[in-house]
């Protein structure tokens, strides 16, 4: 008898655990009510370039979560006024930036900092200019709740999604649920964002031995990766902060840098210090990816430079000393008698030509990453 009881309990447990709607038993009140038939787990295929730093894909990435995440990324219902989505500030054609010096909020406010490019996020472990979040999930949810950006509570966001029948099937296939949780939203958006791998630029093809750089581009590449030695080895010294493979930077104990934009008396944004509370982190910001840099201007956390020429001019001769400026900024001189980088104009042009090799047209035109609502009337 006791054994039969165990069997009954086991079967009951199995029945409950196998309910494919994650604990929401289908109980249709009418013929129109959506019945979740269960989760579909089609593994999400993401090609990781062999020459990138080794990374393991998180477990549980699926095509269904990606597709849900793609819809959520472009879903304007996730803003209080139904006018702004993640994709508003992160536009695919601009390598997921917005072309503005600083982001513009839901109610027209100018935000504090520029919208950051989104690509190769699997290789990053800190997010936002000030590295205030350490997980992609947090990064995905923060803008929804930010009063200036999208201004919804997560509960409100879920209510809105639950009222939209489009999401019945998307959530069901992705997670097997009809009642959504914030973690579902975060995980789906992360699935989408992790898939944003940019690795088909001319530079990538060069690294794979499939394409050659022009003489000017090759000069630019060499300058990019070379730390100068006065009188002997010319260099632009970009690679000391911008990893020459992935061209983003998390180098140093915390990966945050003050790149000499302002002198101490002119600091208006404390950057990483706002996160750590430590003055040694004053005016330090995340060293961003340079991939697709041709498309992601204006540049710097406050968008102060409109062009790559202005950026190069800053590094070449416009640095401002402050107590937290990165030593690499001043210990990089082509002219032994100057604290300036001191590149010649033709060398600056060459570096810019090389930077343009980081433009990945297939990435910014990949239909998988496009707005799914563009072709449909909502």
């Amino acid at each position, binding site marked *: 008898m006791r054994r039969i009881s165990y069997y009954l309990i086991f079967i009951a447990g199995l029945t409950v655990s196998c309910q494919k709607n994650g604990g929401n038993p289908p109980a249709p009140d009418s013929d129109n009510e959506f019945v979740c038939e269960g989760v579909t787990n089609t593994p999400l295929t993401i090609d990781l370039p062999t020459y990138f730093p080794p990374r393991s894909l998180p477990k549980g990435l699926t095509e269904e979560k990606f597709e849900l995440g793609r819809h959520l990324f472009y879903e304007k219902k996730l803003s209080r006024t139904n006018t702004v989505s993640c994709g508003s500030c992160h536009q695919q054609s601009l390598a997921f930036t917005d072309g503005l010096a600083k982001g513009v909020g839901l109610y027209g406010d100018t935000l504090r900092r520029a919208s950051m490019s989104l690509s190769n996020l699997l290789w990053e472990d800190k997010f936002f200019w000030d590295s205030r979040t350490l997980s992609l999930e947090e990064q995905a949810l923060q803008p929804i709740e930010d009063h200036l950006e999208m201004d919804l509570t997560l509960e409100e966001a879920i209510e809105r999604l639950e009222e939209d029948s489009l999401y019945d099937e998307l959530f069901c296939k992705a997670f097997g649920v009809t009642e959504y949780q914030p973690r579902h939203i975060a995980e789906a958006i992360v699935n989408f964002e992790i898939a944003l791998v940019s690795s088909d630029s001319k530079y990538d093809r060069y690294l794979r031995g499939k394409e050659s750089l022009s003489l000017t581009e090759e000069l630019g590449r060499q300058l990019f990766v*070379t730390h100068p030695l*006065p009188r002997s080895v010319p260099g632009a010294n970009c690679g*000391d902060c911008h*990893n020459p493979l992935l061209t983003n930077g998390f180098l140093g104990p*915390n990966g945050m840098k003050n790149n000499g934009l302002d002198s101490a008396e002119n600091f208006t944004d404390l950057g990483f210090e706002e996160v750590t509370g430590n003055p040694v982190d004053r005016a330090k910001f995340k060293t961003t990816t340079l991939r697709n840099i041709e498309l992601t201007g204006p540049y710097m956390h406050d968008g102060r430079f409109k062009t790559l020429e202005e950026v190069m001019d800053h590094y070449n001769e416009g640095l401002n000393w402050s107590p937290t400026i990165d030593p*690499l900024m001043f*210990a990089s001189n082509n002219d032994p008698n100057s604290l300036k980088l001191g590149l010649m104009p033709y060398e600056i042009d060459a570096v810019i030509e090389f930077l343009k090799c980081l433009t990945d047209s297939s990435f910014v035109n990949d239909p998988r990453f496009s707005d799914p609502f563009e072709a449909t009337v909502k």
Partner: protein
Amino acid sequence: MRILRPSISLSVVMFALVLTFSCCEDSEDPASYPNLSIQFDHYFNNNVFELNKQYVTANQDTVEILEHKYIVSNIVFINSTQGIERSLKNAYYLVKVSLDSHRYQLSIPGSSTGLPPGNWDKIRFLIGLDSATNFAPEAAPKLFTDEGMFWDWNTGYKFYVMEGRYFSKDLQFPSTGVIAHIGDMHNLVELEFDLSQKGNLLLENGKTSELVLNVHVDQLFVDPNLVNLSDSSFQQAMGGPAAVSYRQNYSNGYWVLNSISNP
């Protein structure tokens, strides 16, 4: 049922046995290998070394180091009495000082490296990488790229990195950078430690032994070459004579054997 029940039990036992042995094919048994921990304790002027803290060098220069890291590779265990040498495979490590600690614990699991059990009276390793690894083809996976140790395909890797600030009232600004990025094959350093002075290193299967090395960061600036940081060549050593001077300094008494703990 009376006949079936033993069969089921037998099947369960057989299944468990198969499972046990099939698992063993894929995962190495930790008890079959020794483990080694090499502890690198960093000091400056015999005080616990901290990043972002000002120190005075032998030349009375004031420096603050923001980053300090180096590659350890090609670890070889030597029993000189028996004339035996054993090398670790796939063993490339980056030792770095963090914001939190002067200590870097390098854990070497025997199962993945072939750590050899035995009684060893010497250990040898490189600060840097051998030529084949240093100049691997462009598309080959790179080591420590997240840490910026890969330089470029002509030079290979930075073997040793120190980045910091030099303070002086004689500078145009209160401080300037001090950078030592040491690479190039001629700056490869091979270190060998006589373990017999502290008792030999015993590596036993299923047990963990520990070596403690004291790392004297202040030695970077003195002996055999007194570094004068007002000389701008020492402010950015990327190659050339200044890099050689730094390398000669850290080849000399920089890493010192402190203790050995055998199981």
